[in-house]
C-alpha cells in the first residue's frame, strides 16, 4: 500500500523548511520566535534524515532523528532558560538589546 515517494521531493521539502526556518531566525526580533525558527530548522534536518533513512530502508535515519529530538529538547530547555534570564534583566524579548559586545 505504500506508494514510493521520490527522495528528491522529501529532501526538497526539508530544504524548504530549512530555508523558512532560516528566514525566521534572520528576521524575527523576538527571541522566542528565533528559538521557534531554530526548531523548524532542526526539524527540517530530522525530516531529511528520515527521508534518507527511508531511501536505504535503514533505522539509522530514525535514530539520528531521535538524537536530533534529544538535542532540540535540550537546546530549547537551555534557550528558554536564557530567555527567562534575559527577560528578567531587560523586561523585553527584543534580541537587539543583546548588543553590548561589539567591535
Amino acid at each position, binding site marked *: 500500500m505504500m506508494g514510493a515517494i521520490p527522495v528528491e521531493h522529501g529532501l526538497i521539502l526539508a530544504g524548504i523548511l530549512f530555508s523558512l526556518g532560516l528566514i525566521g*531566525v534572520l528576521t524575527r526580533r523576538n527571541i522566542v520566535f528565533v528559538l521557534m525558527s531554530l526548531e523548524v530548522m532542526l526539524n527540517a534536518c530530522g525530516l531529511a534524515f528520515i527521508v*534518507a533513512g527511508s*531511501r536505504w530502508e535503514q533505522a539509522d535515519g530514525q535514530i539520528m532523528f531521535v538524537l536530533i529530538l534529544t538535542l532540540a529538547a535540550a537546546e530549547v530547555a537551555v534557550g528558554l532558560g536564557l530567555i527567562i534570564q534575559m527577560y528578567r534583566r531587560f523586561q523585553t524579548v527584543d534580541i537587539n538589546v543583546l548588543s553590548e559586545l561589539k*567591535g
Partner: protein
Amino acid sequence: MTPLDYAGYTMSAGDLIPLLPLLAVTATSIWVMMAIGVKRNYPFVLGSTVAGLLLAALLAMRLLTGPAPEAAPLLTMDAYAQFFTVLICAAAVGVSLLSHNYWTEFDDQREEFFLLLSLATLGAIVLAGANHFASLLLGLETLSMSLYGMLAYPVHSKRKANSHALESAVKYLILSAVSTAMILFGVALIYAETGSLAFAGLGGLPAGPGVGFSVVALLLVSAGVAFKLSLFPFHIWTPDVYEGAPAPATAYLATIGKIVVFIVLLRVVVETRSLGIAPVVIVFSLLALLSIIAGNLLALLQDNIKRILAYSSIAHMGYLLIAIIAAFYAEGPISIEAVSFYLFAYVVMTLGAFGVVSLLSSDALERDGISDYQGLFWRRPWLAAAFTGMLLSLAGIPLTAGFIGKFYLVLAGVESGLWLLLAALVVGSGIGLYYYLRIVYRMLLPEPADAPELRQGNAAFAIVLVLFALLVLFGVYPASLMSLIQGIAL
C-alpha cells in the same frame, strides 16, 4: 520488516577498556553531581573534578601506548584519540584550577560550573574518538550544551554589573544551533547519498567534476564546522562570546572547544582525502586565507585582550587549516603531525594566555582591558614573563612551542606546495606581531600610579607557570613530543 540485527553486535567488557577515560570522566560527572546533591562543598567539588580528570588523563596516557583497539561502531579510541584525550583532560584540569580563583567570591552556586566542565570534557573526548556522525553530533552538542551553561554562568550574580555573560551565551546558543542545523542538514544529504553515517562511508560520495550534490553536502558540513572553528566568514561570534563569558569558560571554549573540532575534522579529512573533491579543497583554502587575513586585521587595534585573543584565534585556525589542506594533497603523515603538534602548542599557549586573564579576573570584574596590564612586568614579573611567553608563542617566535608548531605548518604547506597560503601565513604573522607586541609593550611600561590591586591565585599561578614551562620545554626540546606524535598519526 528488517530483522533484529543487533544480535550481531555484542559488546564485551574488553571493548570498554579503550573507553576507560570516557568512563572516568562520566563517573566524575556523576560523582560531582551527587556530591553537590549531598552537600555543596566548593573545594571538594573542585578536588573531585580535578582528580577525576587527572585519572582520565592518566588512563588515556596508559592506553596511548597499548595495543590498538578494534574499531567500534561510534568511537575509535585509537592512539590518536587517546593522545588528544590526554590533552583535553589535562587542559580541563588546567581550566578547573584556573577557575578556582575566579569563583572564590562568587555569590551564587559555584559548584555546577565544574559539573558542566566535566560534562563538556566528556563531549570533547567523544569528539576525539568520533568516527561516526552520530557521535560527532552527540559530542559536539554535549560540549556546546555544557558551554552554554558555563558561558552564562554568572548570570545571577549581583556582583557583576553587566549582562555580558548572558549576551555571550545567547549569541553562542543561537548561532551554534544554526551551525548545528547546517551540519545536520549536510550530514543528512550525505547519508541520503551514501547510506552510511560513519566517516568511513564518506568514501561512497560520488566524486569527480560536476558533482554538485557532494560538494553542497560537504560544504554544508564545512560551514557548520567553520563556525565551530570560527573561520571567516563564520567567525563573527567569536570575540563577543569570548569577551562576554567568564574567563575560565572562555579559556575552555578557546582551547578544548576549538581543538576537538579540528581533531574530528582531521579524521574526516584523512577518511575523505582520496575523494579529491577539488571545490571543497579550494573552499577550504579560501577559508584559511580569509581567516588569516581577517583575523589578524580584526585584532589589530583592539583594546580588549580577550577580543584580541579571539581574533587571533581566528587567524590561528586559518594557519591550522593550512595543514588540513595539506593533508588533502599529501599522503604523508607530516600534515597530521603538524596539526597534532600545533593543537598541542595551541592549547598550551591559549590556555596560558587566558590563564593569566583568569588569574587577574574575578566573576565580578574581567580584567581584559589592555590598560589593565600596564606595568605588569614590574609588578608581577613571572606572570608577565609567562604571558609574554604565551603571546610570543602565539606569534610563533622560537624558544616557544608555538614556533615549532609554526615550523610544522610551514613544512606541511611546503610539502603540498601551498605557496599562497604560506604567503598568507607570513603576512598574517607580520600583522599579528603588531598586536601581540602591543600587549607586551603595555606590560613593559611603568605601572600607572592609581593601579588597583592585582588578584592573587596560587592554583592558577601554578598552572600558568606549568604551562610556561611546557611552552619553553617543547619550544626548546620537542623531540619527545615529536616522536610521540609521529606514533599516533592516523
